[in-house]
């Protein structure tokens, strides 16, 4: 599909003088747009550092007169979801316990599967693969209930294991595609040479393919960690309140109808929830771009 990794070499006409009319227009527009993207983040941070009286008085853009970390502490350990009042920390740890095994299992299965599809084609493989890719476009709502039945039959409905299975299955189309395309792009002769050298299915996977594929594994990790961390639908459908992931808990905290709205706590909680994917984004840079460009199909 679209390879979003190559950003080298801009194509437009070369800029001339530093303060030409063209440059002023160009940078002016970009800076204005950049403000549109940045202001929400700014407002969030600012709000989360204010006390409630200050919020009620001032405007949301004003920097805090008196910085307080109280809302952050409250969001993390005291905020109420309607069921309990032990804050987002519970959701954070739930999300960690959901994300780590889901990422590992889904990548393991999809990478081996992509490798089988790329190098060990067997009859009928293409049919299954086509259905799988089509599956990426089917609205999840269509498969929500059948999946409930399936998990119930397996006795893992409402459990962490069940959610890991769900993430593995629904992550499979895009990950398999990612790995299949990557392994297909590796020279086929390498695979042939390894077969002549007597290496089998697993031998070639572990000794030849894996050491050559670190970048794509990193891309897949980024894709999955952000995707699973940000998931809301599966979390709310397939888990029970005591193991709700962070996103579900955040929504329950902010949109709970009881009590007085504490906007500063809400914003602190929102930032906390966004922190994991944001950190990954800022640390991984281009690999993230590559991951989401591939993962965009997932919608």
């Amino acid at each position, binding site marked *: 599909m*679209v390879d*979003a990794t*190559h*950003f080298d070499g*801009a*194509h*437009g*006409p070369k*800029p001339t003088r530093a303060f030409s009319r063209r440059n002023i227009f*160009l940078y002016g527009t*970009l800076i204005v747009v950049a403000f549109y*993207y940045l202001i*929400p983040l700014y*407002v*969030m941070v600012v*709000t989360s550092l204010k006390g409630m009286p200050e919020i009620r008085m001032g*405007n*949301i853009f004003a920097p805090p007169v008196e910085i307080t970390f109280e809302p952050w502490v409250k969001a993390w350990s005291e905020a109420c979801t309607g069921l309990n009042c032990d804050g987002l920390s519970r959701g954070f740890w739930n999300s960690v316990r959901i994300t780590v095994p889901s990422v590992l299992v889904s990548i393991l299965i999809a990478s081996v*599967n992509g490798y089988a*599809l790329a190098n060990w084609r*067997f009859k009928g493989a293409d049919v*299954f693969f086509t259905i*799988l890719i*089509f*599956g990426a*476009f089917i609205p999840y*709502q269509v*498969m*929500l*209930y*059948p999946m409930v039945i399936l998990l119930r039959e397996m006795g893992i409905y409402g459990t962490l294991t069940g959610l890991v299975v769900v993430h593995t*299955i629904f992550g*499979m189309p895009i990950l398999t595609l990612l790995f299949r395309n990557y392994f297909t792009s590796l020279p086929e002769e390498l695979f042939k040479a390894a077969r002549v050298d007597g290496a089998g*299915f*697993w031998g070639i996977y572990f000794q030849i393919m894996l050491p050559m594929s670190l970048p794509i594994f990193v891309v897949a990790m980024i894709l999955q960690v952000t995707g699973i961390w*940000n*998931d*809301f*639908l599966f979390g709310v459908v397939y888990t029970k309140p005591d193991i709700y992931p962070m*996103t579900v808990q*955040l*929504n329950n905290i*902010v*949109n709970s109808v009881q009590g007085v709205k504490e*906007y500063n706590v*809400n*914003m602190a909680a929102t930032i906390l*929830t*966004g922190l994991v*994917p*944001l950190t990954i*984004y*800022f640390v991984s*840079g281009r690999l*993230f*771009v590559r991951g*989401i*460009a591939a993962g*965009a199909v997932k*919608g």
Partner: protein
Amino acid sequence: MATGATKPFGLFRNMSAKIAAIPMIFAAMVVFFGGTIWTVVYSFTDSKLLPRTNWVGFEQYERLWGTNRWLISIENLMIYGVCSLFFSLVIGFLLAALLDQKIRFENTFRTIFLYPFALSFIVTGLIWQWLLNPEFGIQSIIRDLGWTSFAFDPLYNQDIVIYGVLVAGLWQGTGLIMVLMLAGLRGIDQDIWKASRVDGIPSWKTYLFIVIPMMRPVFITTLVIIASGIVKVFDLVVAQTSGGPGIASEVPAKFVYDTMFLRQNLGQGFAASTMMLLAVLIVIIPWAYLEFGGKKRG
């Protein structure tokens, strides 16, 4: 099997690969294929709390299309979809074109435009819920500046609430479209620019008549990505408006979820999700035909 003179039995040949593909076969056949068929079939029953095979023909569909809530969902999806498609493509392309002018700090700008995409829809929805809060948000700021009659409270106004969701959706998603467009622009042969400069064609004309037609595949892929994302809009609405005020910002995905899991009306939920499936197929099948059907001939 070791002799090499006889052909091994078909099923056992390439055994490891087949074992490795079992999860895929399971997901494809049982979940994606089986699950979809199951939902479509049970949309013709009067299942309530639990699925049951009491066939009622198209009754669920008739009731669905007579439900105000569903009609509002569809209308919202249409408005959101058309606007989202249009603005994502236009803004995404313009930003990409601006970034493609050999500017300084390209990476910084790109990082800023894209970071909202790393955030979940829940987070996005909550941020914009706050920004659009009429008491404290944008409306109050502008009133404080002296324009006391200024009204911009989409989240409390039934008529424009969906545009409030749209603003948040665009903020979150245009960065991705920009990245895809930028990759498309960078994929175009440098010589095109040289040739157009030699011919003295102004940049905007080159973009409009040469570059954009050349980027057709990128546009189509992007279109499909946006379109399939639109149908799935759920979390954003849940977080930002909870479907309100009233039911003014309901969308089909939320309708299905609420109907099945909150109102225990499974049959109705299945019918609604089947309609969603239909909508997606109308987008996907022509695209898949264009994208993959053509390649087989080559």
